[in-house]
């Protein structure tokens, strides 16, 4: 699905104890075998509404990688001093703190994208993958593997996000990252004669509607499981 060779960073790969076989698996596994969206069914909530275009999806991916990596790191550092009964609230506060940092910096760096993402940046807090990984991994493991697990899961999540956004933007508005590729965009509506090479495609409005994200993910799951047959739901 996503190419796995971009994952291993050559810099850390050299230092043997810091980036061994287990660490690599932590990073690569969530992209295919243990993908947060298509296998674990986590984190669908805040993701799908922002996949109509590629650039918000990329921003969202970066934000989630940051939040998830550090939330896992901090929780793992604090794991011995968190009482079991109130761990939910403590985890949420760690996540909420990181999300506030992301929100304020995005507001300062790129205001148009911030407005486009609106409440969905805030909804990273309730993104179930983050809670799920904190609960399942960071509460029980050392800081460095936890950090890698967070980054890996966020990348698996982001990979799906960007694939979905790619198809939705390409077929829905005939563009990629805002660049007009084909289809009569707003500026070509009048003079189609001069831009005939762009106007052969009629954008499919279904792909802009929210329902299409579900279809695209459903089909992605179909392809993923047909290719990786051990994931098929037997029940």
């Amino acid at each position, binding site marked *: 699905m996503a190419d796995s060779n971009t994952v291993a960073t050559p810099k850390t790969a050299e230092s043997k104890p810091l980036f061994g076989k287990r660490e690599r698996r932590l990073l690569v596994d969530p992209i295919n075998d243990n993908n947060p969206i298509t296998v674990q069914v986590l984190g*669908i*909530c805040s993701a799908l509404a922002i996949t109509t275009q590629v650039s918000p999806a990329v921003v969202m991916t970066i934000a989630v990688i940051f939040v998830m990596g550090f939330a896992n790191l901090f929780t793992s550092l604090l794991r011995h001093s968190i009482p079991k009964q109130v761990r939910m609230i403590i985890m949420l*506060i760690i996540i909420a703190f990181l999300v*506030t940092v992301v929100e*304020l910096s995005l507001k300062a760096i790129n205001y148009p994208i911030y407005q486009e993402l609106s409440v969905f940046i*805030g909804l990273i807090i*309730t993104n179930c993958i983050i809670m799920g990984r904190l609960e399942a991994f960071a509460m029980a493991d050392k800081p460095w593997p936890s950090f890698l697990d967070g980054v890996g899961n966020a990348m698996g999540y982001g990979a799906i996000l960007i694939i979905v956004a790619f198809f939705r933007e390409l077929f829905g508005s005939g563009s990629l990252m805002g660049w007009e590729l084909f289809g009569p965009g707003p500026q070509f509506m009048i003079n189609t004669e001069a831009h005939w090479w762009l106007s052969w495609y009629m954008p499919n409005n279904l792909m802009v509607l929210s*329902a299409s*994200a579900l279809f695209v993910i459903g089909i992605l799951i179909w392809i*993923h499981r047909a290719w990786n047959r051990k994931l098929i739901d037997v029940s």
Partner: protein
Amino acid sequence: MELINIFIKAAFIENMVLAYFLGMCSYLAVSKTLDTAFGLGLAVIFVLGITMPINWLITTFLLSESGLLGIDLTFLRFILFIAVIASMVQLVEMVIEKYSPGLYASLGIFLPLITVNCAILGGSLFMVAREYTFPESVSFGLGSGFGFFLAIVAIAAIREKIRYSNVPGPLRGLGMAFILTGLMGIGFMSLMGIDPGAIGN
């Protein structure tokens, strides 16, 4: 009348699950059988109906510049909202456990899940963004809770039936649930033609 409009708009036209994809995780995870879906739906209505007015009070009297403290504290919104939601869910859990052990036993595991249900936090954030008044926020909370309830009960009923159909192997389970939700979303989209303002007139 305005309140009824907001309720209908939140439940049908701008359905949390089918129009905004909020609350998808528990929606997909708990919709395998009808009974549990029903219980979770009721719990969500309850929690949304309570947290929305509380969060309204917090934003108006605590966080805004014209509030009691006189300082603009809106940057604390996320942390306070999520704390309110988490403590409310905990409270609801304890109350149900004490007064209705039967309901608690059937809901048990799904109650804590509500804390990370994006529909709850999303509802509060939408309420702030749309600048609702206090009664409107109550109506919006109940309406979006009811919308979630409708969606989860409908998908659970369909998934129970579709188990007996001959779905291609790789599509079975999760894949089919996604495509069904998409079809339901298109169905609900036809309700967008309703003008909620016209109902009152």
